[in-house]
């Protein structure tokens, strides 16, 4: 296990305006690792995707809370967890396929593919009727490398 250097968590309501808040807030926390703008852009993007999923799919029928927990681990390893207590996913493997969506035609079905591409590890745990937890791990480049 890697030692935890710093950590924080955010909790907020499932309102679409909070997607921008979550991505900015995670960006401000990650700034202490002095990432490049590209790394930071990737991180903000995956937070947006996961939080948007919680709002749009998880809490499609009812409002609720979303938690984003961020840990900085030794060796510039960033761990992001986005959790909702919404309706959950029946078939996670299928949901993770590129272009699979249960949403309307404004959805691309590319959210999980983006999360997978922009991070080093993506894990999705979900229980129908109980909620979903998405965990992402991203290793930032060494400074001066």
């Amino acid at each position: 296990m890697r030692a935890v250097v710093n950590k924080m968590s955010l909790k907020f309501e499932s309102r679409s305006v909070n997607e921008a808040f979550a991505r900015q807030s995670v960006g401000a926390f990650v700034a202490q690792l002095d990432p490049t703008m590209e790394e930071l852009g990737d991180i903000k993007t995956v937070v947006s995707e996961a939080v948007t999923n919680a709002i749009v799919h998880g809490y499609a029928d009812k409002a609720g809370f979303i938690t984003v927990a961020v840990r900085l681990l030794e060796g510039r390893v960033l761990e992001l967890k986005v959790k909702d207590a919404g309706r959950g996913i029946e078939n996670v493997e299928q949901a993770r396929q590129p272009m699979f969506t249960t949403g309307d035609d404004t959805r691309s079905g590319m959210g999980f593919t983006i999360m997978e591409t922009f991070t080093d590890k993506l894990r999705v745990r979900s229980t129908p009727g109980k909620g979903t937890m998405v965990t992402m791990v991203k290793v930032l480049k060494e400074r001066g490398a």
Partner: protein
Amino acid sequence: AGEIRRFLRDDGAVKVSRSVKERSVRVRRIQSELESRTGRSPTVSELAEAAGLTVEEVAACEQADVAVDSFERELS
């Protein structure tokens, strides 16, 4: 220096939405300058120093096009 510049600009009454947009444009310009000079992506602290901002303020700048670009690059 950042404090003084902010004071001189006297932008107290300016809405945040406008100011953040202007700042993002400025940071993006400095970013491409640094990139062409050094041949690599600058870090947020390098940008903060060049722009007279805190690293958190730089981190708040949106780089929407950067994320999309890198996604397309990685997929192709």
